[in-house]
């Protein structure tokens, strides 16, 4: 079991709840904007504290309100690709990619070749195009030796050719690395292309 999630949280007037269990491959959380898809990813990553429920990833309990378990984000080994790339502006691409390396592992050459970012290593993040920054962000998450990968609208704000390029990269990540993926999207075509499993919200 890759993800075993049962969560509830109240943010202002909105109650967000989700329950799903998934196998390996890519699971897509699919639904319209505003139903709290991003909040679910944040709760899985430990950036938002749920009111109740549990999160079990790859067999390990990361959060369980009844057992009093709440691992810190840095202890969860979860690769999170945010909606914006969030590259560190004061570090070159190579330093960004290395940031999560102390956690060990990750096939440096393999990931860089798979994402086609070898020629970007000496560049500053602000000089990258949207698609390039996105691929570096995916690489940075993969190279932190994550148990699973969370992707929040990874194709948003990209033009059509760039979307195809990133989608190909994500399919490669799914098929070649074996890292389970939990991806949020509101686009049915995207969901179709990448999902081995779809959770509708």
């Amino acid at each position: 079991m890759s993800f075993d999630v049962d969560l509830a949280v109240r943010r202002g007037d909105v109650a967000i709840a989700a329950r799903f269990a998934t196998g390996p491959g890519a699971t897509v959380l699919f639904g319209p904007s505003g139903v709290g898809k991003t909040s679910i990813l944040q709760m899985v990553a430990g950036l938002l504290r749920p009111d109740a429920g549990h999160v079990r990833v790859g067999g390990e309990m990361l959060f369980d309100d009844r057992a009093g378990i709440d691992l810190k984000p840095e202890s969860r080994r979860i690769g999170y690709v945010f909606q914006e790339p969030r590259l560190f502006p004061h570090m070159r691409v190579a330093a960004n990619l290395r940031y999560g390396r102390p956690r060990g592992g990750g096939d440096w050459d393999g990931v860089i070749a798979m994402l086609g970012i070898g020629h970007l290593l000496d560049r500053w993040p602000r000089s990258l195009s949207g698609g390039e920054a996105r691929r570096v962000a995916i690489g940075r998450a993969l190279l932190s030796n994550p148990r699973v990968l969370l992707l929040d609208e990874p194709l948003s704000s990209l033009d059509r050719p760039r979307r195809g390029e990133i989608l190909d990269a994500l399919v490669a990540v799914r098929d070649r690395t074996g890292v389970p993926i939990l991806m949020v999207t509101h686009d049915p075509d995207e969901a179709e292309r990448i999902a081995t499993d779809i959770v509708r919200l």
Partner: protein
Amino acid sequence: MILSPEEWGVVRLSLLVGGTAMLVTLPLAFALAWALARGRFPGRVLLDGVVHLPLVVPPVVTGWVLLLAFGPDGPIGHWLEAWFGVSVLFRWTGAAIASAVMALPLVVRAIRLSIEAVDPRLEQAARTLGAGRGRVFATITLPLCAPGILAGLVLGFARSIGEFGATITFVSNVPGETATLPLAIYSALQRPGGEDMVWRLAAVSVVLSLIALVASEWLARRMGRGLHVL
């Protein structure tokens, strides 16, 4: 520019007082700026007000309060005398304290702005990559606000060099000890035939202030571009 040995002494003393004032101010200003930028506690608005007081209270009042605190019967002065047998009255260390207090609001303001400019989403990203709070602070937060901290210190340094009212009230105008540039200029103005010295010291003041302002502005711009300065 040709300065007399006496005038060089004034410039050296001013640089010493300003530099020491900033060294003293940095840890305190950073702690205050952090609390004001990131802290959520009751009394934050009040703390913000107290930090800004030296900016609006008449400097002579600030100097008088320092005199009460550091005088032989004051709480801090009494403690310094009893434990270390020292007094800062009429000493350059006292001038540095006065400068530090007067510059504090400016420095806190600059550092606070630079902390608030750091995007917390970057810190979140770093944590998901396995960095604990300490590593996030050292590798993300601090480098990103470092130019702002430096800009604040340079600005505070310039303010220190211009300090007059609090200093003369607190530690008087002792040549070679507390007579920094503005105080020496004031003395020279009172003295028959002191006009040449006034001209030269005033010119030095303007040049030093200008250099500091330009450096501070340059550092602040660099921060906007998100580049390493350190």
